[in-house]
């Protein structure tokens, strides 16, 4: 049994401690908003927050997440109110297929926590997620819009 704190709730999970957090989230906890894209920390579709830091959950063993605050896309809105990044995404009609967008939003939310007014260079450095639909132009605009709404 592994005890994880996810979106503020404790979960007892019957899983091998070496299992990637991504798969524990999706298969044991049932939080499927976090996506599998590559399994080798390249694409960022599986990005979650570990103690507030954007982390690729496909390459993090659940044992390394014990005792930490795990936040997934499902836990980003607070009391039904969208996070400002989600709001900017909605206003800017950012997603296309949407599959990579959970990870993209989580990476953007972590960036804004560290740098409330990021420059384009900050965005380039922090957002390394792959989007095959090519939403980058809308992603950049939405991050700036979210920063302006802080």
């Amino acid at each position, binding site marked *: 049994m592994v005890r994880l704190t996810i979106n503020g709730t404790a979960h007892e999970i019957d899983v*091998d401690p070496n*299992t*990637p957090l991504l*798969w524990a989230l999706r*298969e*044991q906890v*049932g*939080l*499927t*908003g*976090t*996506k*599998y*894209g*590559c*399994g*080798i920390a*390249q*694409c960022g*579709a599986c990005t979650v927050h570990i103690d507030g830091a954007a982390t690729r959950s496909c390459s993090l063993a659940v044992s390394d997440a014990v005792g930490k605050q795990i936040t*997934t*896309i*499902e836990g*980003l*809105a607070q009391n039904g109110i*969208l996070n400002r990044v*989600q709001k900017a*995404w*909605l206003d800017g*009609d*950012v*997603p*296309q*297929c*949407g*599959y*990579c*967008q*959970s990870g993209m*939003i989580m990476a953007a939310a972590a960036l804004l926590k560290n740098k409330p007014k990021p420059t384009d260079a900050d*965005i*380039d*450095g922090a*957002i*390394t*997620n*792959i*989007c*095959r*639909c*090519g*939403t*980058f*132009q*809308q*992603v*950049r605009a939405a991050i700036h819009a979210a920063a302006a709404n802080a």
Partner: protein
Amino acid sequence: MNYIPQINRRTFIVSTAAVGGGLMLSMDIPLGPHVVRAADGSPEVNAWVVIRPDDTVVIRIARSEMGQGTITGLAQLVAEELECDWSKVTTEYPTPGQSVARKRVWGDMSTGGSRGIRTSHEYVRKGGAAARIMLVQAAANEWKVPASECTASNSVITHSPSGRKTTFGKVAEAAAKLEAPTEITLKDPKDWKIAGKPVKRLDTADKINGKMMYGIDVKLPGMLNAAIKDCPVFGGKVKSFDAAKVAGMEGVKKVVQVGDTAVAVVADTWWRAKTALDALPIVWDEGPNAKVSSATIAEALKTGLDAEQAFIGNQNGDAKAAIASAAKKVEAIYSYPYQNHAAMEPLNATALYTADKCEVWCGTQNGEAAFAAVLAASGLPANKCDVHKQILGGGFGRRGAFHDYVSQAVLIAKQMPGTPVKLLWSREEDMVHGKYHPVTQCKLVGAFDKDNNLTALRVRISGQSILTAVRPEALDNGKDPATFQGFNATGEAAIGYSFPNLLVDHAMHNPPVPPGFWRGVNINQNAIYLECFMDELAHASGQDPLEFRRKLMAKHPKHLGVLNAVAEKIGWGKPAPQGVFRGLAQHMGYGSYVAAAAEISVEGGNKIKIHRIVGATDPGFAVNPAQIDRQVAGSFVYGLSALFYGECTVKDGAIEQTNFDTYDSMRIANMPKVESIVMPTGGTPWGGIGEPTICVAAPAVLNAFFAATGKRIRSVPLKNHNITFA
């Protein structure tokens, strides 16, 4: 939007299929007076429109949403004619099984070739218009007044002389019992209020909070998970595997062979299935292709560049004679590699097989093709099968013509009757079992007379045919007409120049690497071949690349229109900022005219910074300019990823790239500022949006790279030339 794919959609099929024909418009003869009902009991006014008592309008969408915005665009077209309140619109997919039961009332479900809107706009608009006419008639009947005195707007019907009003929801039940109208006049697009406007997508809300259900997220009661490995060598088979070695591993339920070529492990979770599969000893019979490599394929294609035998795609005059008597000749050889679609959501399908029923839940670009795969793999008849389409995490052509993943899921589920099984490919499996963008090489020869006039163009394409592998019935006496996309004399992918003498032909060679329709298909390489070579010809004859093209485009006003638009916006002919260089390209595909102009700078001879790229699109009619703008920006990402990184190489009969570490894709740091010009000029048929602009990104940048460095790049990706993003 409220659209969440629901597995209880099955009840909807049963309730409607039981009624048989029902009320069908546009595609079939209405039978009335039976009311066909949706799962919640709400009446179908016709196949396209269900109206709930609370005035919610459910618009049926036959095509598949994979990010391109087709759900929104098609709903706009129906809503425009329906005169409904756009804020009350939601959408749903009918299932292929239901479509078959109702004589294909929704028409083609195929979502490829940028066809979603352009080939169905007329009948979906008629569906919306017919429903409006019936709703108005129902209100008129209730009021006992002529329908001609009533109008519909914003889901409200008004009897003008008396001022009486009612809503769609109140008369939908009565409308559903009426005969469908036979005379339908569609609005002039200039009167559109919903269509043609940059309305927001209907599917965004669930894509920002993790709620959107993709195929990979399907969960059924008692479901197990499967991981699969197919013989990595194309044409190889399973020789043996040692199931006992993994049978005791945690969660493992069964190890099964899938067809002749693959082995799958079924477990309680996918991670456990994959872990066991990685530990499973499998011996492959690698078959006849075990020695095939990129080098052997390239060698074979090279012989085609001068082969006697070739299929002619377009010709006028006598190009060979003109070249033979030319004062000056320019010759170049280009090539284009295999590429994987690499949709972000790896391929997957969930199947439930019982002795008398087989159902599949999956993302597919063609519900009917997925359905056909279920029938074939299950061995069950159409009335015992169905497919529940999920939102796609990208398609790009991989989930259209090919449903290998669906067949596999059914073949696995068949070995575990009564248990739903979700098959998910690993990224590695997805990379090595693609249906790849085909390989071609191209030799181009241009001829000039002594006065520096271009007298002839000769284009010899050598390489792979997609249709031969995928749709042989579409071949024309062995010729693959799709090979000539963008080089054709007429049609939806016509060349934009008039040459005094022209010959374009294709020497076909089909390596054992399976080809597929890869977003943009053959215009991707053909635009590089033609537009980079046009740039070469301009420079060889000392002419400005824009002016050189314009002289040949007098009879191609729409091609010229988009080219002029990007040239003007990029500032062609005016000085560029210090160190910045420009390149142009234009092409036609999928009925749309497209052009691009890029501004780049180059550091150290090999690091490219793309500052701006202007894209112009003339699709005839623009249903949602905001979504076209996004498709253009996204298309440039797809095209530039291919230009810089995209290549799958073959070694020992298998693809070498296995994940995004060896098959890279562009990131936000490399994203140029995209300026999109949407310039519809009307006419028929309409053009598509999802694909055409991809192809002009690469030649525009390559031509700018030549302007910056004097180096002509004739093979992609750029990584092979040690050229990177700055």
